[in-house]
């Protein structure tokens, strides 16, 4: 197995479902940051069979709320001086841009170029969001 050294300071996003790592990598725009980023895929895991994992050695605070929508089982560990100092519990973001798509064929966002369509949490229990333009419901 490839050995990736422990990071001193940064964020470890663990327990990502196998195959979802790249999606999260893109969603967090990790290709745009200049710090060390490692995406590990298909790591053997007792609990999950195989999992993905991302390590980011950075001091820049990242907005991780969107991960709550992608997969609430993901764990986030904040590392300082090589030690885990915080574990973030994921909740559903109240507003999301960039990951959901309106499914209403009559919605203007299907016909005009609209960037950054915002979706507002409508029902947390069923993970349903509402399109800011046409109010129709959508989920991931």
């Amino acid at each position: 197995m490839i050995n990736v050294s422990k990071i001193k300071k940064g964020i470890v996003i663990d327990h990502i479902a196998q195959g979802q790592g790249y999606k999260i990598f893109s969603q967090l725009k990790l290709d745009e940051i200049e710090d060390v980023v490692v995406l590990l895929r298909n790591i053997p895991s007792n609990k999950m069979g195989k999992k993905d994992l991302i390590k980011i050695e950075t001091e820049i605070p990242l907005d991780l709320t969107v991960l709550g929508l992608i997969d609430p089982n993901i764990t986030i560990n904040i590392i300082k001086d090589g030690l885990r100092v915080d574990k973030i519990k994921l909740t559903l973001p109240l507003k999301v841009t960039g990951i959901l798509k309106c499914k209403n064929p009559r919605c203007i966002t299907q016909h005009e170029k609209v960037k950054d369509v915002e979706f507002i949490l409508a029902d947390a229990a069923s993970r349903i969001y509402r399109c800011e333009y046409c109010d129709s419901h959508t989920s991931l």
Partner: protein
Amino acid sequence: MKNIKHLIEPGDFTIEELDSLFRLADAIIADPNKYLDRCKGKLLASLFFEPSTRTRFSFESAMLRLGGQIIGFDDPAASSTSKGESLADTIRTVGCYADIAVLRHPREGTAKLASKYSEDMPVINAGDGGHQHPTQTLTDLMTIRHYKKRLDGHVIAICGDLKFGRTIHSLVKAMSRYEGVRFIFISPEELRMPSYILEGLDESTYMQTDQLESVIHEADILYMSRVQRERFVSEEEYERLKNYYILDKEKLTGAKDDMIVMHPLPRVNEICEEVDDDPRAVYFHQARFGMFIRMALILRLLNMEVEQ
């Protein structure tokens, strides 16, 4: 960015703002001549990406009665959008000429999108597909307020196609903001109020029935609606349900003397012509209130008439 206000959905105005708008409309009704040139030199852009003669006449009459002028189109083929221009570019260009824009579009959410590109020109939603039509709602509220003197404490019976009626959903949402309002929803099983509308209401404030005769005596307002052919899969289904509720003189005998009968028009056959002469029938006057409330709205959004 300047602090301009748009009207995209009825909820964009607080109850207080609505009330102030209604008072302005009252003042216009009381002395329309006073407002004849309030909007002199102002230009309204009437952007109808689908035709709607009724709504367009109402807005254009409102602007002309305020002394303003109008540019626009009501045939999408004549607009530059048909040449592939984006909505954003159309709105920015129109914003160079006009002081206020009225927008009708078949796609849902278009007015909201347009408002995001409009930096100093207020945008009024004149209908975005089956989504919102806030000035229709204002017209309904203005009519109720005029005849019943207030908006709270009424029993509103709504009859007909409750499932697909955008006008009705919007009216229910708007009226549910007022204290003591109760609803009676009258429709056949197939055309009942959708659950997402009912979920927004306190359960003690509404009842559902398929009998108009047995509840009409309770109503302060009877809102009739049209069953639209295009909503049905089969012609037989439409023919059967279209005739389900027809208001005639006979049924009206059970109603209160001061009840009012409303209808967004055009009607098909939901209200018999014999009802037209009944003093309770106010549906032909609604369009007048629609024009006055649009006059008030234009003045308010242009900041021409501040709170009095």
